[in-house]
């Protein structure tokens, strides 16, 4: 079976869930080969977790400056891995990355360098390499395949369920070229999204979002409490972000993040088409809105016409009670 290269998302200590999803998708196409880009020692720390999810090879693309430049070390590492495999007449079946902001950029840069076909934000992938994408704000499903070069595919986080598949993983070294500082952006300061114990928006199984109806930054406490009771992430509509209620990086919608959780709860969000585009592939949608005409209620699996400040805290208490007894 050909190798399928998987770019590992990690924080240096821990593999992100989105990578386990990629490894599961990769197994449909061939043998997963995980590419770890980081400072020396990172791959050794992550290898067992990757092997547990089916990675037969773990490439260590490590250098002391790997964390200092945006994207470039990852693009260099994947390009190197592809060229090395091609030189052994063992070209990979595909390169898979997570369709996060950073992953999508890595995918675009790699495809441009390799003159290869690129499929962005795929939600499914079949063994023949045909990827499913949902386009035009969720109104159309498109199945596409790459016809030229090694397929570079960015998978939407949440599209695959991680599955343990323990194998033996061989660790291989991948030499990174020195980064050209004139062609790279240096990261000079980093302030991680402080979300406490909350999962990442695009990775969460549950997302609770607030809109203009939340009324202010203080009102988001109600949204956060429900998210915490459900172990979910917090999102916000563009209207709420524009009004300054919540930071931009939590924005769900066409110009923010697309999310696809098991459960999406929209609180005080009317449901502009741009917002619906970013969440309507969620498995189950719940909406609470005062306005019975709110468009979001037309696609909610469970819609409540009512005051979110009455409904959400009550739901939070019920969920918390259920969690503590169950």
């Amino acid at each position, binding site marked *: 079976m050909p190798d399928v290269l998987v770019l590992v998302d990690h924080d240096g200590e821990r593999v992100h869930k989105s990578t386990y999803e990629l490894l599961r998708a990769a197994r449909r196409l061939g043998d997963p080969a995980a590419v770890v880009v980081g400072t020396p020692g990172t791959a050794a720390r992550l290898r067992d977790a990757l092997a547990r999810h089916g990675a037969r090879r773990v490439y260590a693309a490590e250098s002391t400056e790997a964390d200092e430049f*945006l994207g470039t070390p990852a693009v260099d590492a994947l390009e190197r891995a592809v060229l090395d495999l091609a030189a052994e007449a063992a070209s990979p079946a595909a390169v898979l990355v997570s369709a*996060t*902001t950073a992953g*999508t*950029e*890595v995918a*675009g*840069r790699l*495809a441009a360098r390799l*003159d*290869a*076909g*690129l499929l*962005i*934000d795929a939600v499914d992938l079949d063994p023949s390499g045909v990827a499913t994408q949902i386009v*035009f704000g969720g*109104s*159309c*499903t*498109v*199945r*596409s*395949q790459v016809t030229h070069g090694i397929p570079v595919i960015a998978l939407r986080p949440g599209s695959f369920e991680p599955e343990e598949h323990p194998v033996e993983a061989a660790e291989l070294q991948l030499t990174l070229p020195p980064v*050209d*500082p*004139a*062609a*790279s*952006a*240096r*990261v000079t300061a*980093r302030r*991680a*999204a402080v979300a406490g114990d909350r999962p990442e*928006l695009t990775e969460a199984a*549950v997302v609770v979002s607030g809109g203009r109806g939340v009324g202010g930054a203080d009102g988001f406490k109600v949204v956060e409490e429900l998210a915490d009771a*459900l172990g979910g992430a917090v999102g916000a509509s563009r209207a709420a972000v524009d009004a300054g209620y919540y930071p*931009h*990086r939590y924005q769900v919608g*066409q110009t923010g993040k697309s999310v696809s959780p098991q*459960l999406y709860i929209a609180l005080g969000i009317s449901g502009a*088409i741009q917002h619906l585009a970013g969440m309507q592939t969620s498995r*189950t949608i*719940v909406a*609470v809105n005062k306005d019975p005409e709110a468009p979001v209620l037309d696609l*909610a*699996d469970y*819609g*409540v*016409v*009512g*005051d979110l400040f*009455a*409904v*959400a805290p*009550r*739901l939070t*208490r*019920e*969920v918390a009670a259920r969690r503590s007894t169950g």
Partner: protein
Amino acid sequence: MNIVVLVKQVPDTGAERTLSEADHTLDRESADPVLDEINERAAEEALTLKETVGADVTVVSMGPDSALDAVRKVLAMGADRGIHISDDRLRGADVVTTARVLAAAVRTVDDVDLVLAGDATTDGQAGAVPAAVADLLRLPPLTHARELTVDAGRVRVERETESGETTLDAPLPALVSVTEKINEPRYPSFKGIMAAKKKPVRTVGLDDLFPDADTAGHLVTRTRVVEAVPRPARAAGIRVTDDGSAGRRLAEYLIAQKLV
């Protein structure tokens, strides 16, 4: 300094969009094209630099004849000149071709210091194009900027994404893509609209940008749509009006659905 702004005209997001029956490419005829809002913010940033540090601003747009309107709008906002990339062979261009063509157009401008673009157009390419253009031009990619500072031959941006905030720094020349948080774009004045009509716009095609390539060398897309189907609209499910019990009943629903 010399700034190139990449703009893309996209169908109005408020309008319904369809895939063309014939070849599954976006049916751009069926929706009103507008200058993508994020591009206007990239243009605004270029014009702000023009006013503060002095710059010559070239606006580049690739697309059918209507893309010329996008060029004219940025000229009306205050850009100095335009390049309209128009070639029937570019219909259905993928990310890689789009990036190559844009990179080639940037190369036709002398001594470029800064390339500015929107961080994602709303019609589907999800932000990969600016990073790919930067890579092809071997420029530092400072993407998703919500704040941009140019000083002493360097550019610094505050980048904001779902994984947090970072400060990026690079020497010029560089490419910066901007988020919708970066500024509020100006409206073209009447005077600007009139002046734009006299500003130079160069129309170029593939043969101008790639004089050495043979026609067969112009690969337009590296992907193929095998199937495109409209998704059934999501139907509304249960609807209740809160009488004080909705929170509890909603919890029961979630428990029954094994979501809690």
